[in-house]
């Protein structure tokens, strides 16, 4: 029982981790609290639903199409929403609120078009696999594998390539990037497209597993943001670690208490971290001048 719960927790942690990796990548590089990420998450499932369930595209084609469109939307949100604010020198709070505004608009548009009810993407019972005493559905296994592949891929991009070096440089000092003769907007473009695509992966896998309704994005973005903070701002392994921890905690909470308290527990964990270890599990303590952002 305990092992099964741990496994379930890790799998849902994997989807949180994909959201958190994207959110963290954007947050770390641009300092924007990207609430709209939640709406992008929601929209990616609905796009997939439209292509796969309504228009009967093959699964892979629907998936790739949704992924590309979502990556483009991520870039578009940056271009039309954040860059004008950044240019004007607006505070991060303004960007956060604008992002929230965008979230509200997009989610309600989705609700108007598709309705508020839950849509099922893959009807019928999933085939299951027995691994030792743990039973996992096919989607769950796919989620785990996808997470591992994307995590490794992202690690290689960030740590081994020149591009990754630039992204990390921008994270540490955004001004220096332009001194190097590189347009920071190009890096933003990259970060927003990769981040959004990561969210789409998580969202579509989750959608195939449990279906979709217009409000799933809020929980997703909140879990993602909490994971980034408890994992430690400023490094991407932290986000994944925080997400897995959150997934396991929530899964144990369902067992010991009740699923109804899941959200409260997430935020209790966040608040405890903010109080006692604000730099997160893997973060480094910073001096006050460094944190004044």
């Amino acid at each position, binding site marked *: 029982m305990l092992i099964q719960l741990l496994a379930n927790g890790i799998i849902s942690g994997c989807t949180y981790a994909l959201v958190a990796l994207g959110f963290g990548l954007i947050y770390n590089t641009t300092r924007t*609290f990207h609430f709209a990420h939640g709406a992008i998450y929601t929209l990616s499932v609905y796009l997939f639903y439209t292509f796969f369930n309504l228009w009967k595209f093959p699964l892979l084609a629907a998936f790739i199409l949704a992924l590309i469109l979502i990556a483009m939307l991520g870039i578009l949100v940056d271009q039309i*929403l954040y860059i*004008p*604010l950044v240019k004007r*020198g*607006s*505070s*991060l*709070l*303004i960007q*956060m*609120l*604008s992002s*929230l*505004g*965008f*979230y*509200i*608009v997009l*989610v*309600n*548009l989705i*609700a*108007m078009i598709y309705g508020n009810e839950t849509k099922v993407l893959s009807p019928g019972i999933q085939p299951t696999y027995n691994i030792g005493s743990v039973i996992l559905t096919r989607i769950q296994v796919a989620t785990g594998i996808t997470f591992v592949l994307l995590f490794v891929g992202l690690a290689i991009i960030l740590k081994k390539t020149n591009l990754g070096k630039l992204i990390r440089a921008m994270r540490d000092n955004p001004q220096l990037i332009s001194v190097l003769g590189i347009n920071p907007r190009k890096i933003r473009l990259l970060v927003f497209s990769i981040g959004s695509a990561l969210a789409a992966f998580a969202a579509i896998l989750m959608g195939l597993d449990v279906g979709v309704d217009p409000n799933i994005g*809020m929980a997703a973005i*909140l879990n993602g*943001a*909490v994971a980034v*903070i408890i994992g430690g701002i400023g490094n991407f392994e932290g986000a994944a670690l925080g997400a897995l921890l959150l997934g396991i905690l929530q899964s144990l909470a369902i067992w010991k208490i*009740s699923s*109804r*308290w899941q*959200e*409260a527990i*997430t*935020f*209790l964990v*966040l*608040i405890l971290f*903010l*109080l006692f270890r*604000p730099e997160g599990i893997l973060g480094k303590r910073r001096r006050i001048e460094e*944190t004044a*952002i």
Partner: protein
Amino acid sequence: MNYLLHILIMINIYMILALSLNLLVGYTGMLSLSHAAFYGIGAYISTLLIMQKGIGFIPAFLLAIAGTTLLSFIISIPSLRLKGDYFVLASLGFQIIIFTILYNWVGLTRGPYGIPGIPRPNLFGIEIDSILSYFIFSGIIAAFCIIFLYLIGDSPFGRVLKAIREDEIAAAALGKNIVRFKIIAFAIAAGFASVSGVLFAGYMRYIDPTSFTLMESIFIVSIIIIGGTGNISGPLVGTALMIILPEILRFLRIPDAIAANMRQIIYGLLIIVILRHKPQGFSGEYRFE
């Protein structure tokens, strides 16, 4: 006529919410997403005291304010040391925790079933039983709150809050205990939010947790962003605008199924456009930068 009075009562209730949040956002520069939680706590404390303990309206009203203010300390003392995004996220966390408690502690709050049949307020033997008298009653309370919050904003205390908003380190250098000022501002804001909660419960005569969600907190924030912050007129203009706006949609005969979504979309767009083009809102003093 009743329809008009209903709108005016709602404006009275939201005016207090917007003005008290303004004390945090506009004066002190702290964006809190937990205002609906305090609004709800006020409504629940007064309702439970009246209905389960048989306490009169006025003592229940006062106890609700006291209880909410006390509760705000539990929340503010840990989280007000946090800055910027972290504070916003912590306040959002508390909003969600409080909502989850209201929703799941069925033994106390009846959870999703809500509490029906809340008695009308009774002031010294006079029952506020008509919609007109409720409008007058809520108007008097709102006027009192406006005056009180105006005086706070205009006092030396209010000027310290504005100093914190402009430059926290400079204010600290002047010997002001920043965290203490923030905690007091937070407590005042929470106390006034609970006044709205009591008025709301007494007017609706039914409460359930869905009136006090995160979206409600966001709605209150959007009122003061759109109206403007840092003075008294901004939140007042914002409240009038945001309460009347959905009523206009009603007259446009937009079907109910999409009206709620339409309303939210308009709020969202207004937030984006105002922040981009008119960061002081329609009538505010403080420019969000």
